[in-house]
């Protein structure tokens, strides 16, 4: 080839120079487990549904959510949101309001009448679910999705279990509960009301291949309190259950509630709404030791509930009409246990409500061989199966942590295990990704955006009506809240790796398809990994 004067080589592109050979560390895209997902007792893919909510596609977000939990409108009200406690955003400004976005999605679904995606083709297998509380509903839903026929036997007159007979209306309006249960029955979950199972093996003879027990814990624990004949001592479970009946329970002007759990607060707040002038909680330990959730204590105090810490009830029914109680002051000893001080006080009261915890009624299991009951709770394996093959259990009757969310998680887990068991397999939980810790992220990139507060009902209406205390978010602030999600540990296509590579060695694959590295040119500098906001790139040593 004839070349111009002084030119000896053909012009060429630097693409001939494969700089990838310089590399000692190789970047790799990874998916890590976001802390919210890791903390969710119901096993929700929170980050997954927030991703769709961020772009304003609420229906897709809801569909993603109900893959794991069929009751977002309920959860968005009653869940104690451990996800928010684990949220990495807490270390930037404040946790993402996951619970409020969940409620918004649930309410949107109810407003627009979204229905579940069709279930898998029928398998011809039938599963009995005992109890229509959160655990039973969740199990029945997941079994139905998998193509099994799930039939719920419910002893009560209405479905919902503790959702209806334990949680006050001001926290969970009944039309929300009814809407989500109706969606489940429309989906194919069969609920037979007023059908009490007294012998589980007998009930299975109705043509069932397996059974899931979710009967809950409805029997109130008692404490011995000397009391006069006329004394009005009630239990919390009964009070809350009667709230769903024709006539509200008569508690009087001055109500004392004994106990320190969420149920005690529910009863005290209910009493106040029923017109009690005074609702006093008596608890034998300190506020720090109280098992009730902090925000519920806070809300109760705002509503004028008074709480007597370090106090026990010694005697009830002191006055002639059966009211008034004698309490004793306690003090914590070195080990943190309350000890009596001998200091007494008389408190005016028209009724005393005991909220000292609940036990499960396990009489339906009396004749089941292989079953182990320990401290009033049924023993189950990792796949939620009891000692008797084919009999699975979950919810309050099978766990120490008794919340709606845990029950929903139990139901899902049990459904998966039952599905495996029906196919003659053993369910093995899928392996979990490495946790997406805050240290692995680059928080510089997240906009400064504090949490949106939900509107709270004014105090007067909270003391006199059963209107919902906590309001919901509207579309704009729900979107804002969803967009506060930092997508910890999973690529959200911010293009940072693609932009910051000095060697153009990141290939953009298009929306939803993420990126890939061009290892022919990647020199392994690691800027992409350092500047990835969410920590979804890992540098690994090159082999030889």
């Amino acid at each position, binding site marked *: 080839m004839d070349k111009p004067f002084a*030119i000896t*080589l*053909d*012009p*060429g*592109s*630097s*693409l*001939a*120079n*494969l*700089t990838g050979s*310089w590399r000692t560390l190789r970047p790799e895209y990874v998916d890590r487990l976001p802390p919210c997902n890791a903390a969710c007792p119901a096993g929700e893919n929170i980050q997954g549904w927030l991703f769709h909510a*961020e*772009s304003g596609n609420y229906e897709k977000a809801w569909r993603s959510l109900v893959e794991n939990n069929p009751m977002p409108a309920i959860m968005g009200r009653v869940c104690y949101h451990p996800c928010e406690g684990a949220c990495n955003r807490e270390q930037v400004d404040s946790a993402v309001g996951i619970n409020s976005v969940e409620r918004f999605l649930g309410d949107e679904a109810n407003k627009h009448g979204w229905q579940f995606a069709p279930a898998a083709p029928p398998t011809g297998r039938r599963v009995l679910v005992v109890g229509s509380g959160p655990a039973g509903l969740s199990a029945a839903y997941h079994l139905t999705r998998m193509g099994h026929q799930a039939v719920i036997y419910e002893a009560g007159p209405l479905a919902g279990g503790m959702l209806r007979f334990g949680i006050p209306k001001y926290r969970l309006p009944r039309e929300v509960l009814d809407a989500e249960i109706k969606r489940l029955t429309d989906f194919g979950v069969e609920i037979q009301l007023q059908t009490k199972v007294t012998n589980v093996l007998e009930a299975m003879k109705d043509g069932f291949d397996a059974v899931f027990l979710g009967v809950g814990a409805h029997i109130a624990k008692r404490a011995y309190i000397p009391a006069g004949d006329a004394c009005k001592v009630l239990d919390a479970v009964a009070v809350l259950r009667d709230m769903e009946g024709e006539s509200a329970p008569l508690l009087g002007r001055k109500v004392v509630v004994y106990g320190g759990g969420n149920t005690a607060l529910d009863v005290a707040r209910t009493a106040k709404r029923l017109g009690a002038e005074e609702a006093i909680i008596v608890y034998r330990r300190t506020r720090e030791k109280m098992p009730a959730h902090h925000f519920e204590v806070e809300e109760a105090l705002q509503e004028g509930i008074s709480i007597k810490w370090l106090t026990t009830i010694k005697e009830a029914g002191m006055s002639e009409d059966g009211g008034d109680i004698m309490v004793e002051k306690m003090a914590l000893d070195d080990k943190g246990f309350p000890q009596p001080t001998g200091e007494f006080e008389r408190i005016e009261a028209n009724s005393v409500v005991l909220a000292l915890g609940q036990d499960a009624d396990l009489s339906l299991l009396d004749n089941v061989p292989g079953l182990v009951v320990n401290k009033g709770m049924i023993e189950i394996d990792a796949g939620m199966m009891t000692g008797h093959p084919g009999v699975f259990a979950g919810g309050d009757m099978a766990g120490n942590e008794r919340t709606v969310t845990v029950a929903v998680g139990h139901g899902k887990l049990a459904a998966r295990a039952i599905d495996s068991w029906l196919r003659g397999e053993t369910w093995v939980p899928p392996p979990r990704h490495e946790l997406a810790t805050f240290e692995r992220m680059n928080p*510089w*990139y*997240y*906009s*400064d*955006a504090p949490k949106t507060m939900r509107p709270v009902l004014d105090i007067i209406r909270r003391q006199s009506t059963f209107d919902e205390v906590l309001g919901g978010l509207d579309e704009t602030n729900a979107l*804002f809240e969803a*967009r*506060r*999600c*930092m*997508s910890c540990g999973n690529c*959200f*296509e*911010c*293009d*940072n790796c*693609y*932009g*910051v*590579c*000095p*060697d*153009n*060695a990141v290939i*953009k694959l*298009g*929306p939803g398809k993420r990126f890939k590295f*061009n290892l*022919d*040119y990647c*020199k*392994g*500098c*690691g*800027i992409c*990994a*350092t*500047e990835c*906001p969410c920590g979804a790139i890992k*540098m690994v040593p090159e082999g030889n």
Partner: protein
Amino acid sequence: MSFQPVKFYQTGTFTVGNRLLPPEERSVQSSDKRFNSINSGHRACQGCGEALGARYAIDAAMEATNGQVIAANATGCLEVFSTPYPETSWQIPWIHSLFGNTAAVATGIAAALKVKGQTQTRVVAQGGDGGTTDIGFGCLSGMFERNDDVLYICYDNGGYMNTGVQRSSATPSAARTSTTPAVGSAPGNVFGQGKFLPAIALAHDIPYVATATVADLRDLEAKVRRAMEIRGARYIHILVPCPLGWGTAAHDTIRMARLAKETGTFPVFEAEYGEIKSVLAIRHPLPVEDYLKPQKRYAHLFGKQPKVDVIAHLQAQADRNIKRYGLLEQGTR
């Protein structure tokens, strides 16, 4: 502020892209159709800030002019690593000048284009801090003074890095280079010498002067876009960390630029006709130690007996920048 920042879209405009922004509001660098003016296969070190800064700036200029850019390039790292004869990484019309005359070569190209009536084609001159603040300073000042229609971009990495990290007039005080070793009673580069060229450019009252870093892409792109809207002499000074010369980890290049800006060590501003129009405010104020410590060129300040007086001196320089440019107040003035 040279561009409208977007807040609350998860990462707003802090990241290169953002799937929640409408496509027209996204950065040039986030597009899969960006020019890649400087292509893969160049021989810059791992984590080179200059290679990155050059692609950011020239891609933005290409986008703003519909691909009508001619670049003149001074000798220096950028020329050496991109174009070892007969190969080149440049995908634009590009000419290598002498070390010191890039501004003059660009002036000539602009004049020729004017004569030919091709005024839609724009001229960019670019070089490192050595070729700009030292060797090419006379040509550059002449270009400013004549108000020639050229955008001059200086990629400042604070020294002559490809020849072995020698000191330039842009090397910061106290920094160790091979010609300012960390020995004697006043180790590292001397205080009170050198120059901050953006301020000299300002003194020429030219139509546009701006500073930028590789840590704030949206700001950098907006400044290049603004510069291409203006005719006459324009100057953009981009801080580009050098892992080799600064003694920093290859993966920390952007982080170092961010720290330079957040500590006030490097002021990021924009000016027209000698008047400062806006600054990129410090988001989370930090002490200069945070910027100095990761750099081996300042290691002699942090031994068993930290040189607190020198660090205090550097902090005073940063504080003066913060005060002089108003770096704690966001916005246009």
